[in-house]
């Protein structure tokens, strides 16, 4: 569904993405992990067209996304830090998004109901706590039945109950055969929610396979242990080469 071909992105001297190639297919769920500053968010923003890669191509349904915007109808995006106009209220924001994406006739308000956001429709967005903001972002990402869901640290800052609601929703959407991409540092969540693993480090993809394959390779049963072993192996390999 989404194929990323050799994209590079430089911010001045820094290479945020370095020759990334990745194939993302419908029906699978991907965990995108890596240390802070490894280029996860830049990769996601490139797929959304918010960041324009220095070189390489990104194809969505076999069509290049450059100078194309219609493909974003098929993406529900939950940003890492939801930044919204300050003086607008939650209700107005949701109405605005519905109005702007009028072409989608049916909307999915499950999360708005589950998070009880309608009780806070009169609250201006600048008064919201980080967690409530996350709830708003999540509700907006799922609002339009998008076949591709890109969630940048979805459960960060959510209370346990809300995090469970959100995870349940992600599970539900996954079962409906959607393509889900999640970045997170909470590996136990990813263990439950995703089946594929993309590990990024310093702008490069270091590992790209199913989570089960990684567990087999490292002889671990939990994702966090498996990742730790993977990183240790990589470091060992790097030091041997040096």
């Amino acid at each position: 569904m989404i194929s990323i071909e050799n994209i590079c992105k430089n911010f001045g001297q820094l290479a945020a993405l370095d020759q990334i190639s990745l194939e993302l297919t419908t029906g699978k769920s991907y965990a995108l992990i890596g240390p802070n500053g490894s280029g996860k968010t830049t990769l996601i923003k490139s797929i959304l067209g918010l960041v324009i890669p220095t070189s390489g191509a990104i194809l969505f349904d076999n069509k290049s996304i450059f100078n194309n915007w219609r493909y974003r109808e098929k993406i529900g995006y939950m940003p890492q830090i939801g930044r919204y106009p300050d003086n607008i209220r939650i209700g107005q924001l949701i109405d605005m998004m519905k109005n702007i994406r009028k072409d989608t006739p049916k909307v999915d308000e499950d999360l708005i109901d589950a998070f009880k956001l309608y009780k806070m429709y009169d609250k201006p967005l600048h008064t919201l706590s980080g967690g409530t903001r996350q709830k708003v972002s999540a509700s907006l990402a799922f609002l339009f039945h998008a076949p591709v869901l890109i969630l940048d640290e979805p459960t960060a800052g959510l209370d346990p109950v809300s995090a469970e609601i959100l995870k349940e929703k992600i599970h539900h959407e996954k079962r409906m055969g959607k393509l889900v991409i999640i970045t997170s540092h909470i590996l136990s969540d990813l263990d439950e929610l995703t089946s594929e693993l993309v590990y990024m480090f310093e702008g490069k993809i270091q590992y790209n396979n199913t989570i089960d394959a990684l567990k087999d390779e490292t002889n671990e049963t939990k994702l966090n242990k498996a990742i730790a072993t993977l990183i240790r192996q990589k470091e060992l390999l790097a030091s041997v080469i040096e």
Partner: protein
Amino acid sequence: MTRVIKYVFYDILRTRFILFYTLFLLVCTFMLFQVDSDFGKVVLSLMNIVLMAVPLISVVFTTIHFFNSYEFIELMLAQPINRRSIFLSEYLAVASSLCLAFCIGVGLPFVIYGAWQPIASLLLTGVFLTLVFVSLAFFASVLTRDKAKAIGIALLFWFYFSLIYDGILLWVVYSFNDYPLEKLTLALIAFNPVDLARIIMLLQLDISALMGYTGAFYKNFFGSSMGILFSGVLLTTWALWPMGIAMRIFNKKDL
């Protein structure tokens, strides 16, 4: 696109800045009408306000608005909307609300006092100046991510076209006054939208004779309908090119 424009308008109206701007212009114009009964003099005093204040307010308001709506732009860019229509919506909403404020603020007193004759050229130059400086401010805004820097660049544009350029022009005319300079100054004026606006206004007011020989030359050139058309085209170019470049940069900008 109209949906996006609607929300930008909504946002602009909520800050009430445009309302204060309209009130400021209304008060200024009414006061000038109170002080002087000669419409020509009123227009002349008003012209000086228009030439200084309109560009200044346009650049400051536009840059502040652009950076305040950064979140909104980010949000819109993740939606299935063309980047170009987001940019154009921002431009059209800002420019039209500033133009509307100007037309009401300056035009209304003229209508009330029944001074129909000079109103058209005054409003036209004011609207043109607003469009030009909104374009320049958008250009400054997309150049950098830093709000303070962008406002600095935008103010520099204002400073340059309102003060520095005239200084340079004066210096050229003074240093080379042994040579026939009419054609050269005419060409140099084309590079400054504020000068273009000023000259159109002065010629409309029929006081160009006060500007001596060059004034007569300009009258000869600008006073004709060809001259008006020429300066109109130039001012349009001045409104379009910074906007065009700004849009190109915005299309490739990382957010």
